[in-house]
């Protein structure tokens, strides 16, 4: 093979390599974008979940948010002592998670309790709930399979 021919072959190999790398880069770019869209969906779903749990009526005019505040503050709630109330709150939230979601989920009130467990998931925004004993951060995480 002449010197000129060798250079041409080299050039062709470089062009093919650049093309292959370009196609792979494009593929990864497209797949990562669709992943972001899915993450946004799970984030909206997690926000909806926290909102629904927070508002649900659990005892007369009292909401789950009031029950959580009482549980985390160690107070009585609706004729139940603190421990009974916390057991009730955890049980009801577990029931809601089970009935309203297809995916596994984690529901957390910081420095109070955590329901569920998973390594990877998309979290909701943090909702602040304020009580006499201080504020608590409430959030949910939809687990990714």
């Amino acid at each position, binding site marked *: 093979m002449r010197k000129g021919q060798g250079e041409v072959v080299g050039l062709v190999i470089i062009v093919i390599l650049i093309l292959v790398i370009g196609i792979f880069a494009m593929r990864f770019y497209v797949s990562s974008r669709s992943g972001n869209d899915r993450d946004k969906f799970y984030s*909206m779903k997690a926000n909806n979940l926290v909102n629904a749990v927070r508002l649900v009526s659990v005892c007369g005019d009292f909401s789950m948010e009031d029950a959580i505040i009482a549980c985390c503050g160690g107070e009585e709630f609706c004729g139940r002592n603190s421990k009974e109330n916390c057991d009730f709150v955890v049980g009801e939230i577990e029931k809601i998670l089970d009935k309203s*979601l297809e995916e596994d989920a984690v529901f957390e009130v910081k420095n109070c309790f955590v329901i569920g467990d998973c390594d990877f998931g998309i979290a909701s925004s943090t909702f602040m709930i304020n009580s006499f004993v201080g504020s608590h951060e409430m959030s949910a995480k939809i687990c990714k399979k």
Partner: protein
Amino acid sequence: MAKWLRGDLLKKGQLQTQETMLVIFIFIVLLFVGLIIFFRFNNISIQTEREEYENYKFDLLISVFPSMAEVSCSELGVEGECIDVSKLEGFSSVSSDYFSNKKMTISINDVYLKDKSWNIFDNKPEKYDSFRNISTPVALYYPVEEKYSVGVLKLGWYK
């Protein structure tokens, strides 16, 4: 110039012209093949992007639908973050005008306080390739009892 020399030059010139034409021809063929591949790839990419955008728009409905003024709960004009079930019943009867040509289904089930469900919209086409459904928990408000419950908003899309 000698005749033999002139003929030789002519042959050499013709050969070079043919070579140039061949190179131009191959170049044009390669250019067209490249253009066809590029446009096809571009077309596929645009179609994929369009599909992703439509999927994303559909996913957004889990956030958009509960906050629509037609169904969301409100007090003294201030909209809350829940669905008013009394509005749902009214909205179900006019939803076909609202979503008109959309090939989709919308329904809500109460999964906490009561065993109730609402079919808000259902427009199943005769022919469809695939069906995609998504769901989300939502807060439901019963204005008569002034109580909140948890519902599941189910959205289906016939493609």
